[in-house]
């Protein structure tokens, strides 16, 4: 069972993930229309790229924009959640040791205690996000069950990984569940809202180009996010 889910199934999951993401990026870019969107993308590429980069960088920085600064609590939870979500699986020792064993390469790794902290913090942040969805009326009216499912898919690998490592008596069983949860997440990314993994950058770049070319970017200053 382990060999299957870390062999063919893993290949399948990653292929779907990578190909899916690339397809989404390509389809997005293909679907841009300078005239329909009313943004002269290619005519002023320099300003467009400048605007795109600014748009992405400011919004990727904690408290980098007025939007983030206006919601400090949510911003902290948001960034902690995402940084934990992304950093932990990529720089986890266990994952990198497997990578080293299989392919001889390894990224930098973080200590186990750092990984534990990040994992716990991701889970706590997820709880906060759920509570936020249920308690704030402006978020509640937008929330659907789908939102909870997406959050569950994203956090499941962390919960199951943590259980397997520290809590479970049947390590192998929970490890397999953990791997399957991870694969579900990978496969879900191109097909669900988790596609914001790549589409965040696309959408932000697009709006950045819009502001960079059309809405004042060519008048010298970039938009004051």
């Amino acid at each position, binding site marked *: 069972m382990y060999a299957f889910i870390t062999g063919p199934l893993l290949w399948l999951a990653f292929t779907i993930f990578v190909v899916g993401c690339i397809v989404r990026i390509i389809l997005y870019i293909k679907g841009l229309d300078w005239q329909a969107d009313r943004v002269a993308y290619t005519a002023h590429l320099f300003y467009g790229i400048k605007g795109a980069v600014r748009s992405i960088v400011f919004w990727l920085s904690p408290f980098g924009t007025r939007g983030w600064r206006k919601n400090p609590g949510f911003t902290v939870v948001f960034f902690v959640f995402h940084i934990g979500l992304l950093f932990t699986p990529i720089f986890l020792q266990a994952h990198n040791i497997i990578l080293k064993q299989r392919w001889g390469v390894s990224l930098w790794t973080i200590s186990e205690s750092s990984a534990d902290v990040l994992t716990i913090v991701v889970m706590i942040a997820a709880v906060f996000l759920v509570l936020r969805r249920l308690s704030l009326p402006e*978020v509640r009216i937008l929330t659907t069950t789908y939102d909870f499912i997406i959050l569950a898919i994203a956090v499941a690998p962390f919960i199951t990984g943590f259980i397997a490592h520290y809590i479970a008596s049947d390590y192998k069983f929970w490890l397999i569940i953990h791997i399957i949860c991870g694969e579900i997440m990978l496969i879900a990314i191109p097909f669900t809202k988790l596609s914001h993994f790549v589409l965040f950058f696309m959408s932000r770049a697009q709006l950045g180009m819009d502001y960079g070319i059309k809405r004042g970017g060519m008048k010298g200053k970039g938009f004051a996010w």
Partner: protein
Amino acid sequence: MPEGILCNKKTVDIKEQLDALLADAGGKQYYEEMNQLDIDKDALRATIKKSFKSRLKTWLEICAHCGMCAESCYYYLANNRDPEQVPSYKIHSTLGKLIKRKGNVDNAFMQMCMDTAFSKCSCCTRCGVYCPFGIDMGVMFGYLRGLLFSQGFTPWEMKVGSGMHRIYKAQMDVTTEDWIDTCEWMAEEWEDDYPGLKIPVDKKNADIMYTLNAREAKHYPQDIAEAAVLFHLAGENWTVPSEGWEETSLTMFAGDWAACKMQVENVYAAMERLKPKRMVGTECGHAYRATVIEGPYWAGIKNGQPPVESLHYVEWVAEALRTGKLKIDPAKKIKEPVTFQDSCNYVRNAGLADIPREIMSYIAEDFREMTPNREHNFCCGGGGGLNGIGRYREARNIGFKIKRDQILATGAKLVVAPCHNCWDAIRDMEEIYHVGIRWSFLKPLLIDMVQVPDHLKPKD
């Protein structure tokens, strides 16, 4: 009943149609007919297929339902944080649903969309600035308005406005003759105070070609005179075109894209004809936006720029003050507390935030910024055509509260609002709430404080 006499999917292209529409006071019959209007689902689907592309599609798809757009929207804030005013909710319950149902919607739904698109959103695009994904709901509502218009679901005043532009190439029924007459009349009236004042029409290769808002021609001709005087005092080599003089675009508010194209092409034709060095528009936000920012795309110009470098009026004023073409008499500077209304259409959506500050530094001694300000300022409450639409007056008046409180918080007595919509909105706001403030365009203020060069003073 598929098509009404007044309310239908057809565009208003001939005068008789327009007159019939105008005769229906307040759109009473129009709205009654709207209740019976069918939806041409095939056409709707076809339009969506052609125009709904990855930008809009992705925006609707990746909305994470985070609710950060809520506080950015002045309707949400003015309506006591009513969750149904959350921009994401508004767009998803209208355009989102429309797309999900693939155009398979009924009359009630379309009317609900129209109500939302026109009374719950003034397309100020402030929400797009506060969304982590950069989802611009203002742009989406603009798109929705287009879909609604194509199906005949547009407010009466918008249908009228669209007709005006199609027929008169201006937002009001001002013919070319009316226009030229008005120019001559104003020049005559003001010549005594400003000898040598002229309003040159159709002068080729001038430095500046001036375009304006038809309301000025129809209702506030003194504005034209003031503009002429200021150009005259600044010693500008300027002109106005006989055709293509009207810069505004109610068609943009209505979502009549075809007419938007026609409108701006008219202005560009004038530019081609007269070949000015630059075009300067009047103090009108959406006119600048429509003609200079969005217009090139409707006209199919690939680099997204009008044929001639085009300025909003504030840009010209700043330049004139900066270069000394216009000199302010220090004794006549504005002494009382004064604040500035950042119009969405040329500040947030065109990046001219610094220019007004520069102007204020020349003309005001106690300038107070609103909070928030510049690109993050709130809409006046009357944008997107809302000022004119009777059906949604109540909703608009509630929206005014935010701007009212902003102005009061500055402690200013005067609001400078170089934008017709903002000017109207603040006037209406004062009429309803009686907070005791005054508001003004730039031109009358400048006329009062600018130094007249000796050689232009009346000789007596």
